[in-house]
């Protein structure tokens, strides 16, 4: 039954298959124009870069599936990156408590977002936009505007090291994707999440603990953004201010490409994974086409617009007056 549910959701959801097909085609085309793009070492780099978008977008997927949006990911990510380097101070020793602490702080950010939205009825856009600005100010206050510590070597290994041909980071991402798929497809929480995103009132009357499920989605997003921040520091070697900024648009774009409805209730994290891969290949394509790096931001925006418009158009008759 449950397995059929997954198969049906995947087969029935053509947009997820389309997203993977798109990723493969895009990769093939790019490789054809650029020798070395498909080499094992470059594919590893692409996978690592895609994982940052993918991990942030895991949280964003949960939030969007539940009918919300999380605009606080940039500074949640940045905060985790800054704090983990500050706590560890370049040494591996303190990581055993620093990493759990930073993830817990990310969970607290999500908890506050979720409570403000579900309990106090504040609109998700305002709550998370406000949270993002509060976090930016708080982190600037804490670090006095200049974080300096270097990422501990263990985190750098996590981000760039590998077992055999596969990077640790890819294993981490695959593990998270498996867990997310498990939760979305086979657990009550997953089903409640889809119910919540489809229609909050109906979900409430059907016995879904809407408050708890909403809060859980934002907590997942807070933890995911923090984790991405930790791994990203390992990749860049250092935390810097503004490192989270690109991930607001890219995480929403990855979810949108993956075929999820931006209004909630439909989509799957497996689609988002394809979305993250597509965005990463696109970013790799820009220098080949001699395009300005700023084009990436334009592409993120256009991709969100086009996918959202395309998903909305077929249903337009029903909504139209």
């Amino acid at each position: 039954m449950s397995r059929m549910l997954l198969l049906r959701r995947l087969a029935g959801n053509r947009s997820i298959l389309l997203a993977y097909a798109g990723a493969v085609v895009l990769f093939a085309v790019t490789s054809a124009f650029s020798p070395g793009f498909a080499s094992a070492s470059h594919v590893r780099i692409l996978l690592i870069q895609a994982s940052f978008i993918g991990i942030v977008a895991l949280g964003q997927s949960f939030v969007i599936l539940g009918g919300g949006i999380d605009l606080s990911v940039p500074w949640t990510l940045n905060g985790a990156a800054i704090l983990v380097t500050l706590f560890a101070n370049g040494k591996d020793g303190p990581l055993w408590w620093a990493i759990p602490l930073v993830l817990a702080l990310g969970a607290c950010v999500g908890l506050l977002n979720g409570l403000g939205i579900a309990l106090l009825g504040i609109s998700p856009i305002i709550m998370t936009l406000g949270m993002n600005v509060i976090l930016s100010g708080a982190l600037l206050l804490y670090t006095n505007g200049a974080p300096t510590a270097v990422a501990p070597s263990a985190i750098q290994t996590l981000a760039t090291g590998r077992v055999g041909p596969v990077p640790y980071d890819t294993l981490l991402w695959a593990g998270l994707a498996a867990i997310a798929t498990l939760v979305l497809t086979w657990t009550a929480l997953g089903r409640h999440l889809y119910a919540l995103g489809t229609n909050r009132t109906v979900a409430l009357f059907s016995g879904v603990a809407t408050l708890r499920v909403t809060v859980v989605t934002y907590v997942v997003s807070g933890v995911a953004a923090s984790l991405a921040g930790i791994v990203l520091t390992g990749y860049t070697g250092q935390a810097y201010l503004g490192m989270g900024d690109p991930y607001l648009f890219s995480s929403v774009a990855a979810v949108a490409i993956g075929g999820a409805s931006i209004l909630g209730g439909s989509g799957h994290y497996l689609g988002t994974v394809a979305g993250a891969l597509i965005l990463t290949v696109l970013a790799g394509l820009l220098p080949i086409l001699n395009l300005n790096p700023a084009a990436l931001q334009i592409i993120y925006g256009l991709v969100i617009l086009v996918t959202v418009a395309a998903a909305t158009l077929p249903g337009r008759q029903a909504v139209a007056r």
Partner: protein
Amino acid sequence: MGTGLEGGVEATVLEQGAAAAGPRGRRPRRSALDVALQTAPIAVPYLMLGVLIAVYGSVGNGVFTLGQLNVQSAAMLPLLLVATGQTIVILLGGIDLSVGGVVSLTTAIAATRFGHGGPRMVLWALAIVLLGAAIGLLNGLLVARLRLQPFIVTLATWSVWSGVALWILPTDGGSIPHGFIDWANATPLGIATPVWLVLGLVVFWHWLKRTRPGIGIRAVGSSENSSYLSGVPTTVTTMTAYALCGLFAALGGLFLVTQTASGSPTVGNDYILNSVAAVVIGGTSLFGGRGGLGGTIAGAAILTLIASVIFTLNISSFWTPVLTGVLLILAVLANSLTQLYTRRRGIA
């Protein structure tokens, strides 16, 4: 419907009176709390502003002078211009996150294309204002015709126009000719241009409020379906509102470059949250239909003065975003709780 259009406090009272008349035709007694809650959206921001001015007066020197009025008006004006556009869109029941991209783009174009001033500068300034309106019109078109959610449309166009700004001007820089800066620093009749512009905005608002689109915006914000059924051209109204928002964002960016004398591809991002915060702190409801520029002016002044007080007290300026964010969330909370309470009373 007629009562909802003139807006402000009176309309709320009338609406509530009509709704509360109930089947027996007897108006329930309005407690002092009801009256307080109905006047709160406009009274609270001005009370807060009064307190803030008093605090600033006690810690700063020469606060109650014409010079200080000129300085603070200039500091407030870019935000107020962007927030004026945001007020219009929020009154409509929407939200515009793309103002960040528009402000950045405006400063980028101005800093790279104004040259040494003269007619070229004037033409480019006009083009920038038109571009802002066109960008807003596009948002409005996507929201009204394709019936997409305003937040996702403007999130996407925010990304697009920030990208274009980065393309034109990759890092902070460029230059603004003196001719453009002098105009903003002039003091006709001893009062600086920004003060006159704030007065101009007030006059504009009183005019707009009575025009057909102005009434339509408030009507659509109160109930899109009822407005449509009452003959309000909802599509055109929505597009007008977003076009005005883009236009005001461009004006905000143009005024900003007179202060920074350079462009920045990212400076606009600060104006997204701040413009929404100015509107909401000013008592305009995020659900649409209620509020106006009067509150927004107080909201923008509060946010500007907080920065000044923090600067005067020699506290880290990093506190400004923290306070702004907290104030925004508290204002939204107060607004929705008030709305919940008055609605309950109206039905009871």
